């Protein structure tokens, strides 16, 4: 065992250094939230009670709303991210279940037909006949879907896509630069706003966007968790003529609880921290925490104690999430999802 001891020592050193580097910024923001103004403007201070006398003033100011609305963004962040996480984990798990237990066959030609009808139809309706954007898009969506579902049942030549391709289609949404879909969604929401329901800076608008944003993660992760759930119990239930939805909610979901928790945590973290969609789709009332945070440094300058309180409020729930996931990781739960 002596041969590797040099590497062992190097590994230990590296791990320790990284530990210090990971922890220090979080420690610094934590103590800064308790600093009185003087402890910031005099130069860096590190240790409470030694370098400075800690105070809760910054927290009191923040919650009293003395320095701008704080509770609003916290409330909207909590509401939006919990609702969107619940929806995308539910819908994502259903989709993952379908992908694990059934086979899908989609003809490439039918998919291409969909794209052609959708784009061509929109140019025709909106560009040439001048139909309003939301109506044109909705009409095109329905027609293109109907035609390609029908086309898929024909014996068309060309490659046939299977379940893995459907999963890849979901995951590939993550390859898109988010500015592309965020900006497109902003344009669409403002068009819809002109003819009726207000989606920009609204709860439904944000929840819709974030549910779609979280779905690729949910489908991808839950597919792995569900494929390790044994199929025999379900088959027995099918023989007893119990409906698929009762099987799903009554048998499959309870067996997949650890996977559901892990997936929810990951999706929640992504939605809670998301910045670009919130920046584009909100203007005031439904502004989320990351947008508020981003505005801090220009509006606050060097009021680090206030900035730190804001940062801490955004960090605290994620510390809990990371701890839960760290525990789950130790039990080897997440190792399946790398394949």
């Amino acid at each position, binding site marked *: 065992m002596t041969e590797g001891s040099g590497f062992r020592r190097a590994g230990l050193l590296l*791990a320790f250094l990284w*530990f210090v580097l990971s922890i220090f910024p979080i420690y610094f923001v934590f103590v800064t939230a308790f600093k009185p103004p003087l402890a910031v403007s005099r130069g860096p201070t590190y240790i409470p009670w030694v370098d400075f006398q800690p105070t809760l003033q910054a927290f009191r100011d923040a919650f009293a709303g003395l320095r701008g609305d704080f509770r609003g963004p916290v409330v909207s962040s909590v509401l939006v991210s919990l609702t969107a996480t619940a929806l995308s984990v539910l819908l994502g798990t259903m989709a993952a279940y379908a992908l694990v237990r059934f086979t899908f066959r989609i003809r490439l030609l039918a998919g291409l037909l969909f794209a052609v009808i959708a*784009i061509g139809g929109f140019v025709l309706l909106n560009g040439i006949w001048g139909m309003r954007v939301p109506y044109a898009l909705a009409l095109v969506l329905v027609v293109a879907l109907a035609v390609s579902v029908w086309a898929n049942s024909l014996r068309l030549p060309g490659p046939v896509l299977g379940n893995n391709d459907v999963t890849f289609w979901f995951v590939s949404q993550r390859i898109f630069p988010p*500015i592309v879909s965020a*900006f497109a969604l902003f344009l669409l929401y403002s068009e819809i706003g002109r003819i009726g329901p207000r989606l920009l800076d609204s709860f439904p608008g944000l929840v819709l966007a974030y549910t779609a944003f979280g779905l690729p993660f949910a489908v991808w992760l839950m597919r792995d968790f569900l494929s390790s759930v044994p199929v025999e119990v379900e088959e027995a239930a099918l023989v007893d003529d119990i409906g698929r939805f009762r099987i799903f909610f009554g048998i499959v979901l309870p067996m997949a609880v650890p996977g559901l928790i892990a997936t929810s945590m990951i999706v929640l973290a992504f939605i809670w921290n998301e*910045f670009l969609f919130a920046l584009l789709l909100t203007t005031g009332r439904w502004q989320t925490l990351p947008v508020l945070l981003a505005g801090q440094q220009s509006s606050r300058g060097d009021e680090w104690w206030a900035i730190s309180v804001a940062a801490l409020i955004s960090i605290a729930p994620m510390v809990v999430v*990371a701890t839960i996931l760290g525990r789950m990781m*130790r039990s080897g739960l997440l190792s399946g999802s790398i394949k």
Partner: protein
Amino acid sequence: MSAGLSQDRIKHAFLWPAFLLVLAISLFPLIYALIVSFQSVRLVPPLPPRFVGFDNYAEILQSARFWGSMRVTATITLASVALQYVLGFALALALHHNVPGASLYRVTFLLPMFLAPVGVALIARMIFHPFLGPVNDLFTTLGFGHVEFLTRAGPAIAVLVTIEVWQWTPFVTLLMLAGLQSLPHEVFEAAKVDDISPWRRFWDITFPMLLPLSVAVVFIRLVEGFKVIDTVFVLTGGGPGTATETLTLFAYNEGFKKFNLGMTSALSFTFLFVVIVFGTIYLALAQRLVRRVT
């Protein structure tokens, strides 16, 4: 799985809600944005949209600011992903061989990647502050001068790379650790019996066996890194001048500071095109590499 199950029509009820939502929210607006990218649309002053063909795209390709933002994005992404991979893999090896305190490290290592990039950037602003920040405090103690980290182009990019590395190295560690744990023990036992040094064991066995996973991990990080905006937005706002402006930030500024919607749409599609081209090249090269090594 029996054939009877897969014919079940109910499967559509499970898949379609998710499928429709992603289609309607993530993909369908793109059609509209694609049309807008061929138009001249300005909100201020409000002019009716006018079809301009490829003018927006031509203007982008001729704009020095676009190529600048390409360079900044590529520099930050390539530098930080290279560092993330080397550090992350090394840390995974250390954790895999159970250094003392490994279980404590696991939770703390996870933490950075769950923090909002915006929040991390705010913290970085304090830590790299020219006079009040700990880094310059350390530099002065060690006898170096003050560094104006955020107001000069070179150091600002270095700080952005540091943040990316700080936040996303754990992601590499997490996946590489899972990969290490899935390797068969027998091969390593045999190599130990044959008295092969740990250094050679790594390069001859561990590294080639984990190459496919490495390719995937680096790909994910490259794609994600290319999207960077949050940290830049808070840390430098793209400054000084446009020296640290990334592609996403550039597209955002065109649309929301200049209200030039056609231009932003064209930019985001150019961006998408760049990602697809580089992604394809990367995957083709990586596949060849994997085939040669294994």
